[in-house]
């Protein structure tokens, strides 16, 4: 079979031969099991079917799978040349001079975000702990208040308990603080290039923390009732702004990128590329 001249003839295509053995095998297998719920005889018939089918199938594929040669269609029945009614493609204003884009244009490297987040988080933590020490005489105060979002025993704890060390609280607080710091640091890598070029420290360091502080204050009673109860707003806002300023600064200094402030919003977001003006 393998020496068939049609094997290398471009006018012929090799296809597997149609066969009934799969259906016989499948039918046998089904009957084999169906016998369990009907009668033994059904199983016996099924077994015989399945074995015959299996053997038939084996002879189909061994030593070489059976196949047949089908002649290809005459040329006039073959597919048309590719056509499109859309010959022209709109051009991009930004990016390359071509018709398409992926936007790696210029964002800060992700490592900058990680670093910024960690740095901001560290400063924030130091400030918060300082507050705990000064105002409540315990460095665990802010730690436990943060953890109270997830730890039920802290959520309903007395001020004394919040001021005391709690292992669960410590672990949860560290994880939450780290995770959120890094995530917001990453957001800064995206955010900063889009901000107005002037007064980056204001747009990056002050405005976003204020926005998210407002969000937090609205949702805090639901998310973290204990914190809502004991929060000291001036300090809280100070901590957030410190995070924003440090994080923004680190991200900004890691690698200066071209800002996108002259772009339209959709372009900044990278989901649209404007047509070139004619």
């Amino acid at each position, binding site marked *: 079979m393998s020496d068939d001249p049609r094997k290398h003839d471009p006018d012929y295509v090799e296809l597997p031969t149609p066969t009934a053995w799969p259906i016989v095998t499948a039918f046998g297998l089904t009957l084999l099991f169906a016998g369990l719920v009907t009668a033994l005889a059904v199983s016996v018939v099924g077994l015989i079917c399945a074995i015959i089918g299996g053997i038939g199938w084996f002879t189909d594929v061994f*030593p070489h799978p059976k196949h047949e040669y089908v002649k290809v269609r005459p040329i006039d029945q073959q597919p048309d040349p590719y056509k499109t009614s859309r010959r022209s493609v709109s051009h991009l204003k930004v990016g390359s001079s071509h018709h398409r884009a992926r936007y790696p244009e210029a964002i800060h490297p992700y490592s900058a975000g990680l670093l910024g987040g960690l740095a901001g988080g560290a400063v924030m933590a130091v400030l918060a702990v300082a507050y705990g020490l000064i105002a409540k005489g315990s460095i665990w105060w802010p730690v436990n208040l943060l953890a109270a979002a997830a730890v039920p025993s802290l959520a309903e704890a007395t001020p004394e308990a919040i001021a005391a060390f709690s292992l669960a609280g410590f672990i949860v607080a560290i994880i939450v603080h780290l995770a959120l710091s890094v995530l917001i640091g990453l957001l800064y890598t995206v955010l900063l290039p889009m901000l107005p070029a002037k007064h980056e420290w204001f747009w990056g360091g002050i405005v976003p923390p204020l926005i998210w502080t407002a969000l937090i204050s609205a949702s805090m009673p639901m998310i973290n009732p204990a914190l809502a109860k004991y929060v000291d707003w001036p300090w809280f806002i100070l901590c957030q702004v410190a995070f924003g300023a440090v994080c923004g600064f680190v991200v900004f200094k890691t690698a200066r990128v071209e800002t996108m402030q002259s772009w339209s919003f959709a372009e900044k977001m990278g989901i649209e590329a404007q047509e070139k003006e004619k």
Partner: protein
Amino acid sequence: MSAENVNAGQPQHFINDPADESTPWVLPSPRRVGIICLILTETALFSIFVVAYLFYIGRSLNGPFPADVLHLPVFASVCLIGSSFTIMAAEFALKKANHALFNLWWGITMLLGIIFIVYTGLEWHELIYEKNLTIRTNVFGSTFYSLVGLHASHVIVGLFLLGSVLVSSFRGKLHHDHHEHVEVISWYWHFVDAVWIVVLGVVYILSVHMDAPLMP
């Protein structure tokens, strides 16, 4: 329709593209990918039975318990695990086109597998008729027979595969280009051996030495 149009139907400029011509297009062999997928799916199947066995350790309400009835099947295990090496030897012989040596090693592999199955049969006979452990005795019996039985059934399927290769080899139908078939079957056999090592550890070693549930 002109001939030109036909060519236009094909991505002509790619064929002429030297970059494409020079890079050969090699894809993995279907049989190998297929057997890997099969082994993956079998692994998932076995792991459920293993988890069920582990979960039910120490949960039988009445005996016999593993420690009472199971002893380490050293000889059978050596046979089965040894057969992994003999099948490798057989494969090697086939690659060197030494059919006689191939038949010898392949036959030994089968023999070792058969010894294993016979041992399992004897063990079951003893468990059922002398030690009164059946699949309905307790949860140990249920999980033991299902896990070991599932493995044994795979050994039997493996033996059929090995046998079919041996028969075709004797009939001279096993050609040089069948070494991939042989390789794929040997992979399956290695997998069956690997499962046995897990079964050995879980059933014959761990559960014999545990009498409290592992999981809460």
